[in-house]
């Protein structure tokens, strides 16, 4: 419930603020080989949209591998009326279907057979209808920009909400480079080859949940979705966020809330005891084997907003170490040939200027040069 969340926050802030004597150190847990190798099922059956289900396995805590997809499984959505929708493996461990049309009021289950022949299925789940997002808005304060979502359900039937978001931002390299160093020569850049403007995107990693249970109307007013700290590169030019809204059942909401509490809202004085969450996926081949994850079904509603740099001024530039170095002709080979610097532009009649590659080529900072289709 909402107030429980704020309570924890208060307690955490209270302690960390009043007693500035505390300290936090990185902790590496003891090496263990206790990985139970459970199947993890992640995704939402999105009615009226494309659906992606990711299958993976649990990993050892100190594993250097970043993911552990489970390939070669058969994944099918089966309705009460025996209608079935097979998902195809798009990339290893990701199973998808272009358009999943679920009937409102009908119950579905997710049916999985892994390559080792084990069979898993979810509980029967109902499809919730998600009301539209009324609006997204944002405010700025000394710490940064907070984006809020507003929504409501006239019929008072939604009550439990979850949001995911996708951020995209345009950013610039420190210098616009007009030359490339090709074949031992400084060659003017083709106007289409500039590496000055990039777009970066990021999907939400935290769970954003809210409930209007306990309110007299099914209204979510100004629920925080995403926060952009002041000075972040994200609004150095222009920023956009697409917020995706899902309606949840009470049980699904409680599952995600417990997951959030035990993996995100920790670190206070009064942390709840970590609990082993019970999802709605079961291994029918071996009832003692646990499967992790919670599958819910709902329609999806989305909304996007843009925030321009001009709207948030003054917005300090992100810290960069980008000196502009003057390179005389006799040093061109040395600096640019050895890739110590990347060329920027002419400087005076004979000299060139250069800077570090990351200051010149925006793609080195994680973005791409491809302008997203929705970008204005």
């Amino acid at each position, binding site marked *: 419930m909402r107030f429980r969340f704020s309570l924890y*926050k*208060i307690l955490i802030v209270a*302690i960390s603020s009043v007693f500035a004597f505390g*300290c936090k150190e990185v*902790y590496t847990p003891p090496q263990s080989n206790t990985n139970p190798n459970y199947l993890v099922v992640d995704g939402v059956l999105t009615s009226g949209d494309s659906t992606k289900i990711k299958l993976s396995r649990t990993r050892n805590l100190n594993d250097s591998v970043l993911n552990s997809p489970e390939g070669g499984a058969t994944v099918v959505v089966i309705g009460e009326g025996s209608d079935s929708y097979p998902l195809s493996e798009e990339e290893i461990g990701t199973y998808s279907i272009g358009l999943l049309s679920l009937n409102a009021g009908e119950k579905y289950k997710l049916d999985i057979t892994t390559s080792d022949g084990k069979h898993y299925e979810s509980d029967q789940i109902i499809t919730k209808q998600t009301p539209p997002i009324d609006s997204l808005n944002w405010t700025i304060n000394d710490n940064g920009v907070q984006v809020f979502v507003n929504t409501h359900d006239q019929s008072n039937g939604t009550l439990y909400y979850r949001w995911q978001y996708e951020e995209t931002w345009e950013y610039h390299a420190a210098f616009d480079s007009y030359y490339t160093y090709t074949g031992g020569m400084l060659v003017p850049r083709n106007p289409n080859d500039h590496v000055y403007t990039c777009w970066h995107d990021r999907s939400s990693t935290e769970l954003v949940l809210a409930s209007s249970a306990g309110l007299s109307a099914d209204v979510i007013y100004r629920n925080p979705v995403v926060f952009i700290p002041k000075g972040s590169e994200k609004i150095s030019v222009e920023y956009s966020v697409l917020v995706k809204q899902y309606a949840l059942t009470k049980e699904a909401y409680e599952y995600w809330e*417990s997951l959030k509490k035990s993996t995100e809202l920790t*670190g206070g004085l009064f*942390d709840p*005891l970590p609990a082993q969450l019970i999802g709605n996926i079961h291994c029918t081949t071996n009832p003692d084997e646990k499967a992790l994850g919670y599958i819910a079904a709902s329609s999806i509603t989305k909304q996007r907003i843009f925030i321009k740099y001009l709207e948030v001024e003054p917005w300090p530039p992100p810290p960069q170490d980008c000196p502009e170095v003057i390179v005389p002709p006799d040093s061109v080979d040395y600096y640019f040939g050895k890739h110590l610097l990347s060329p920027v532009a002419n400087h005076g009649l004979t000299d060139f200027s250069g800077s570090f590659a990351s200051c010149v080529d925006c793609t080195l900072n994680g973005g791409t040069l491809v302008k997203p289709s929705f970008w204005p």
Partner: protein
Amino acid sequence: MPKFCRYCLLLCFVLAVGFVEVSAQDKKLISGDFRGMNFEQFIHALESKSNYHFYYNISQFDSFTVNISATNKTLNAILDEAFLHSDFHYSIDQQNNVFVIRRFKIETSLPTDFFARKKLTNDSSKNFVLSDNSDEQEKQNEKIKSALENRLFEIGVKSNTIKPGSATLAGYVRDLKTGEAIIGAAIYIDNPPIGVTTDQFGYYSFTLPRGRHSLKITSVGMKETKRQIILYTDGKLNIDLQEFVASLKVVTVISEKNSNVKGLQMGVERMNIKTIKQVPVVFGEADVLRAVLALPGVTSVGEASTGFNVRGGSADQNLILFNDATIYNPSHFFGFFSAFNPDVVKDVELYKSSIPEKYGGRLASVLDVTTRDGNKKKFSGAGGVGPLTARLTLEGPLVKDKTTFIIGGRTTYSDWLLKTLPNKDYSNSGASFYDANVRISHEINAKNNLYLTGYISNDQFKLNNDTLYRYRNKNANIKWRHSFNNKFYGIFTAGYDGYEYSVSSTANPVNAYKLAFDINQTNARLDFAYAASASHTIDFGVNSIYYQLHPGSFTPVGDKSLVVPDHVQAEQGLESAAYLGDKWTISSKFSLNAGIRYSLFNYLGAHDVYSYVPGQPRTENTIVDTTSYAKNKNIKSYQGPEYRIALRYSISDNASLKLSYNTLRQYIHLLSNTTTISPTDIWKLSDPNIKPQTGEQYSLGYYQNFKSNTIETSIEVYYKTMLNYLDYKSGATLIMNHHIETDVLTTRGKAYGVEVMIKKLSGKLNGWVSYTYSRTLLQQDDPIAGETINKGDYYPANFDKPHNVNFIGNYKINHRFSISLNLVYSTGRPITLPIAIYDLGGSQRVYYSDRNQYRIPDYFRTDLSMNIEGNHKIKKLKHSSWTIGVYNLTARKNPYSIYFTEENGVIKGYKLSIFGTAIPSITYNFKF
């Protein structure tokens, strides 16, 4: 001076005992082996073998050791030999008074005013007591002490022959300076070896054989004294004790001499405020609960924990009494400070195993915090200023020697600390607390006393000006004590205790809410104590508590709020008990304390009760029926006997063996599924779906004192079981839950351990060291729980810390400086660590192991503090002292918790220390 003193004829003493026996004993020969004795022991030995009385100033003899033995020698011969190569001289007068001093000899002509019945402070004895002490007051006190000690008090109706049989002596033991009652003072005689202790009013009732006795009176922090009495019939004797000022060069044994060996109770720890103040603490404020944590068998989950755990009990299994008022949340600031003002507190008693039958309602322990009554003689005050808090206490007589008051208050100014923090979030936040105490004691007449006590504590935390968080204790009670006669008195107590908290947030106008919880209890009790005979002391009484709880209300704040008011139904309950106990001295070796308490709990309407499908896990879906009960209708009763049995066997004068067995029942539970209890946890009464917790404990202890009882040692072993202890389902919702039984599980627990303690409470160096080995294991095997913890196996409780070592030492360098050192070591508490990670919901997540299968690193802390007193001039406007301390001197980063959290989609592990650095503090204290 009490009336009876005027009739105490010193003359009579001298004539009847003195002269008659002098002639008979003049040439009495003394035998004995005095080798290795210090001067006091030597003198005591001589006094016990003769009727000589010695006068001396002990400070002259502190390095003197006797090295002689004697067979049928006269006193003169013995003393000549003992002082042979020293510069000590002695004189003996006609009354068999012996004066021993250094360097010169006293002429023993009898002073003319020796028999005069003048004010005792001007008593003749001043001619004899020599002192090299510059302190006038001390001299004066010494005079009073020796005069009183050597005077013969005739008790009761005098008769020529003393009838055989017993009579009862009763009275108060008080502080000479302030007139305040002294609790737990031991009054005993050596032959036969019997004794009593004073109760919470400083009252004692002592049945002993008629005739001549030397009563010995000892109490922690007070000078030991004695009274010579002839007991004819029942009578009264009030005794004033003097404070033991250790910085003065008087070597006086101040331990509760022998009481740990001779007392019946086991698993009892008593600390007076002086000891508590010696324990170095964070932020320099003497803290009752921190001192309690230094006792063997007491642990806590972490440094910022409100609760403490006694012998494997959970934090809600401690009954915390503050002048008989139940305190539900004994801390400020989320557990960093205890809610008791150190200037008001007199002493603290913790019952760990043999809990007196008059107490009940909690499984693990009773912590009895007593405040002072206030100075009876003059108006005075005390206070202090520390880094975070300031306090002030005033006390004095309202009507001299009849009515006294004490009033104390404490507050914090920590807000400025928040303001100095760079983060703007915090500077708009504020934290504050205060507590206030008042106590009025009134002596209506010799037989009736009245006590009024009030207490309030309040905590508040404000975040960003829009979320307000507060909690509050409120207590008031009235106590009337009536003595029927010397042997029999009764106390009637009635009071109200309350605790409430609320959280309100206006950050979002649509969701603006106030969440509130409160618990109210009205209680009344009648307690009687009857000193039936020399070998039987009987306690009995009845008590009743009416509870009313509002387990939660969630209401809108402001016009725009859409919050629908929600109230969890109020709960009512009546807990009643009757008890009877007997302290029975079976023989000089054996004594027995047998008590029974019968408790009854009624869960009362108005309330709706859900019934569930039998044999099925309780969930919302298995509710089959709802029964509504009318107001005050009995919904469910629970009842049962509780046994309190303790047996003592004296192996010798200095050693004893004790055995005890206890059963307890608890009808109110704290619901908390966080690691440490938090101020926002709620209390819940037992109801048709939640059974009372029950527990039993066996313990065995061996006690031995060394070096004239100045060193006490003890070893106690216990085994304990608990039933119907509450645990919680995964993701349980405890707040605003209308059917809490669907989220709780019942568990059983067992705890066992050994506690070893060595204590030295007197001398320049005093303190204690204790080692505890203890385990607390829980098992959740509720067949209808629907889920099990760790597959139904025993698992360690959150506060299971097997090894604990505590050292508390205080060294008095001189009159004005003392240093205290505190060392704490314990095994790290159990935690649940992740054993695997997985990807879900856009981020890595952790998969946890079975509960509490790992431990955080061991805990070790060193604290040091120094107390600097101002000069000891008696005629000063105020006496002040400075306490300078460093908490966590070695700056060890003791982990409070280890946690894993998602950061940008990746799981990170952190170790959080609350006090990760050395924290210096300086506190100024004053008294006037």
